[in-house]
């Protein structure tokens, strides 16, 4: 009987040049619930859809603050994400201790990228089963990075990973031009709208299942150069959802009117 002999470990190439274990890990990312990230000239936002394993359980964390200037959003194995986020927290604290400086985003992203790559090249290890979006600000402004289990990292303008994320990406591609000049609230609005696109018919964004994290450059006249990474979870998210509601119902009303004219 046919058996794939090339997927037993992550160090063996298949004759087609593929490493199946890495691809399987990337499947794990696709099983995770969706997270969206967008960056403008002033802010970087992360939006995530939380899932609860059963009716009686709490919702799985999707956005994690790493340091005061950055946070991550996760899709895939939450336990692997916890290992990575703990590592990132250590690295950023280390930078603050030895240099008195917030770690540059590119630096920490390359670091976890290297760690993930090592896992794909050592016998007896397995790739991380999680994809990350890393958002934050440093001396060179706001940034958004994507991280994959293969160790691949990329800087992005906007990105979505996880289950049904293609719908969100379509939305992001359609509105790409607007993101750069977005204000803080507008950017969150785009994030939530992109997230909404991915929902199946019977689902909607609620206080329980929506989470938002945002960091940015400080507004003129405020103290400090950056606006710290802020996590909106639970009741904090209510105003953001209400703003989304107001924005979308406005456009829908126009749509409904034109429908009437049609008939």
């Amino acid at each position, binding site marked *: 009987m046919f058996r794939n002999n090339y997927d037993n470990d992550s160090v063996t190439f298949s004759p087609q040049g593929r490493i199946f274990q890495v691809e399987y890990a990337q499947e794990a990312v696709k099983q995770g619930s969706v997270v969206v990230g967008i960056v403008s000239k002033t802010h970087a936002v992360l939006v995530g859809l939380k899932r609860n394993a059963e009716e009686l359980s709490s919702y799985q964390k999707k956005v994690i603050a790493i340091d005061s200037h950055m946070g991550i959003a996760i899709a895939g194995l939450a336990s692997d994400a916890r290992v990575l986020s703990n590592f990132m927290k250590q690295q950023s604290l280390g930078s603050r*201790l*030895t240099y008195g*400086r917030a770690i*540059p985003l*590119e630096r920490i992203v*390359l670091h976890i990228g290297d760690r993930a790559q090592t896992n794909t090249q050592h016998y007896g290890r397995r790739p991380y089963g999680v994809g990350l979006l890393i958002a934050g600000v*440093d001396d*060179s402004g706001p940034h958004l990075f994507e991280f994959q289990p293969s160790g691949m990292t990329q800087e992005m303008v906007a990105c979505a990973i996880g289950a049904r994320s293609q719908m969100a990406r379509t939305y992001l591609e359609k509105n790409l031009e607007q993101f750069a000049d977005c204000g803080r609230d507008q950017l969150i609005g785009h994030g939530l709208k992109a997230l909404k696109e991915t929902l199946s018919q019977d689902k909607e964004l609620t206080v329980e299942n929506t989470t938002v994290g945002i960091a940015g450059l400080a507004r003129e006249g405020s103290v400090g150069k950056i606006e710290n990474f802020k996590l909106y979870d639970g009741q904090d998210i209510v105003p953001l959802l209400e703003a989304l509601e107001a924005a979308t119902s406005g456009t829908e009303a126009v749509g409904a009117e034109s429908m009437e004219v049609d008939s």
Partner: protein
Amino acid sequence: MNHLPQAWGRPRDDVYGTYDRSYLQTSTPNSHTQSPAVTGTSVLAIKFNGGVAMAADKLASYGSLARFTDVKRIRVFDKTTVVGFGGDISDMQYIDRLLDSIDVEENYSSNGNTLNAKNVHTYLAKVLYKRRSKFDPLWNQILVAGFDDDSKPFLSSADLLGTTFSAPHLATGFGAHLAIPILRRLFPEEMPVENIGKEEAVAALRECMKVLFYRDARSLDQYSLAVVTSDGVELKEDEKLEAQSWNFAENIRGYGTQVN
């Protein structure tokens, strides 16, 4: 047969005779640096309006012997920061290599993230403290000059114990005794740094270097002079003391062989 752990992996006594344990020990305990060897003397630095100036002579002494006369004790870091070293020269060279390597690391990612003088000072203070905690200190006192996170002039010191402090003017070694009082008289503490011009600050440093050459027997009349401003670092490594006057020497009594 001896089965005890201390005999594991060693030739059997009953076959090869008693093992000569003296090979396992060195004759003396490990010892770390207890005193510096080749040393540099004072480093002076002063903040002025829009920058910092620093000076250090080019002598490296081996005890009281003037061993090397062309040692550059001020180095530039990342075009925006200067670091001046007093104390052991070989430890200075080691720290110089450390700084080179973090400079390289920092420049791998080229998009706008740089270490400023404050970051470099924090780093060096951590290195020095780590080494003193190993009881193997790097025998230096270091001045770091440049700009901080808010692009304001920055000047701070770190020494072999890991102690740090900062002031509008700082000096290491003999300069701490001879130059600081002069600088304090020229630029009193309550005088804001904004009132001190660049030329004024540099002139004061040159004057202090002269006094140090008169009175510090481990100093030299050739020195390096660095000026950091927002335009970058201007480092001159071939400065010479000018207009020396040794007339005062006649009046010194109490040293040497004179009778009265």
